[in-house]
């Protein structure tokens, strides 16, 4: 009988908390969105599944060794942990509090005590440390994106860089919105949190994760989920804004064909961009450095094998670990609060403002160039989200004028948006990091 009781007390059903049930439901919902609705499945499948695994009771997959040791709360282990952290209380909550606030040497000592007692880091915790806390996974993804990006349309019409800049207004407007909500006492965000939330408006998953991991790791789960869900919703969020801000005749503007861009130009561009980053904004160097490196591998033509790996095998491997790591941050205590709702809300506002700013900038540029040179629809592609946003521009353009293919013209602002959001990320890290 005693054995049966023991088994029962070690079971998931006995130990599960309401928060874990809710988070498993959230994970299942993400899987549903990914599998049935085809929302960014490459990321939401690993994120959703990671979220479910992180909330399995008693398994402690998303916790560090010390957190696991405290969870199982054997008196002698708690005593040893308290001693290593120089506190007298053996209350689990106080030990955890001391552990999170400890200096590196006592932190290390506590970890060793937990390891000696037979507790180890959860699998997802390890993935998170290696892939995201170190910054490696988002940067490798950026390298792969660089290797997939063709700067031809941008080089043929460099002015589209302005559209990529304008669309970043969404990021900064959202930062203001987030601190405004905190100032009014509705939410509780620091300026670092606000900056990390704003980056959702950059519509760039790896950039958002990179910035969040540096400025607001506790919000990373919500920010990543918001960023990827809204990227999947680009075809629904953008068109109404684009239609509202442009007139029928503006949408009909046909753009003339882009000039031919030579191979030398394409090779020189990532190098020129990297030099500019090095001179002006070293804080954006990790992101844009890897991006330029990936692009150079693509364009130089002598390392096709490396370029192929970066844009296929490697980016797939990294995506798996990135998704599972993000999932590990979907724990009930961090995800189920009002702030997450605020992040989801602010994220969509960021997207909307970015789209509007891009379209308005394109309208302005069109006016300056005589009113018949730039179709304002390509402005919305300034919010990265490559290549979805460019396809949306193309689609709305075709609705107005079936002969007008805007796809290549929209790719210019689209890749400019990637550069723009990476620059914005560098500025954020510099100012509030």
């Amino acid at each position, binding site marked *: 009988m005693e054995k049966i009781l023991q088994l029962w007390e070690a079971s998931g059903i006995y130990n599960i908390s309401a928060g874990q049930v809710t988070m498993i439901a959230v994970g299942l919902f993400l899987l549903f969105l990914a599998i049935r609705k085809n929302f960014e499945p490459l990321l939401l499948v690993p994120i959703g599944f990671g979220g479910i695994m992180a909330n399995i009771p008693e398994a402690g997959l998303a916790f560090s060794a010390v957190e696991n040791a405290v969870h199982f709360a054997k008196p002698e282990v708690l005593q040893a942990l308290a001693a290593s952290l120089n506190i007298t209380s053996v209350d689990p909550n106080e030990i955890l509090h001391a552990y999170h606030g400890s200096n590196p040497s006592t932190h290390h000592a506590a970890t060793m005590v937990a390891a000696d007692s037979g507790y180890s880091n959860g699998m997802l915790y390890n993935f998170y440390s290696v892939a995201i806390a170190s910054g490696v996974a988002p940067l490798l993804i950026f390298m792969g994106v660089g290797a997939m990006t063709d700067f031809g349309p941008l080089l043929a019409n460099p002015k589209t860089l*302005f559209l990529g800049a304008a669309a970043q207004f969404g990021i900064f407007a959202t930062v203001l919105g987030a*601190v405004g909500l905190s100032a009014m006492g509705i939410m509780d965000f620091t300026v670092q949190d606000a900056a990390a939330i704003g980056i959702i408006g950059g519509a760039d998953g790896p950039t958002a994760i990179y910035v969040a991991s540096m400025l607001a790791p506790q919000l990373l789960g919500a920010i990543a989920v918001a960023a990827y869900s809204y990227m999947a919703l680009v075809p629904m969020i953008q068109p109404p804004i684009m239609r509202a801000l442009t007139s029928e005749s503006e949408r009909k503007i046909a753009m003339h064909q882009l000039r031919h861009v*030579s191979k030398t130009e394409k090779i020189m561009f990532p190098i020129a961009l990297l030099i500019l980053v090095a001179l002006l904004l070293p804080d954006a160097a990790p992101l844009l450095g890897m991006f330029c490196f990936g692009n150079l591998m693509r364009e130089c033509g002598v390392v096709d094998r490396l370029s192929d790996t970066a844009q296929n095998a490697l980016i797939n491997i990294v995506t798996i670990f990135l998704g599972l790591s993000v999932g590990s941050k979907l724990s009930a205590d961090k995800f189920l609060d009002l702030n997450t709702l605020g992040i989801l809300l602010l994220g969509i506002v960021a997207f909307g403002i970015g789209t509007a700013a891009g379209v308005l900038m394109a309208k302005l540029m069109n006016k300056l160039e005589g009113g018949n040179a730039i179709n304002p629809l390509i402005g919305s592609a300034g919010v990265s989200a490559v290549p979805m946003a460019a396809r949306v521009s193309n689609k709305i353009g075709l609705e107005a004028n079936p002969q007008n293919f805007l796809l290549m013209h929209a790719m210019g602002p689209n890749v400019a948006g990637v550069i723009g959001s990476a620059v*914005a990320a560098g500025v954020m890290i510099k100012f*509030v990091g």
Partner: protein
Amino acid sequence: MDSLVSEGLNLMVYGMGFVFVFLTLLVFVTTMMSKLVNKFFPEPIVEQKAKASAPQAAANNDELLAVMTAAVHKYRK
């Protein structure tokens, strides 16, 4: 609390300003780079294209059409 808002405002003004300055410089650098490259390292293929006769251009179009159809087809999958 006001300091938080003013921090946010600062971040917006400087951040947006910097993004624009950086990308404006990038426009100049890119334009210059393209001009220099096209002046000193013109692509030999461009000249050949200029000489190409009309039928060849039509053939090119067919090829382009085939490539695009294939690409669209692949994407639709």
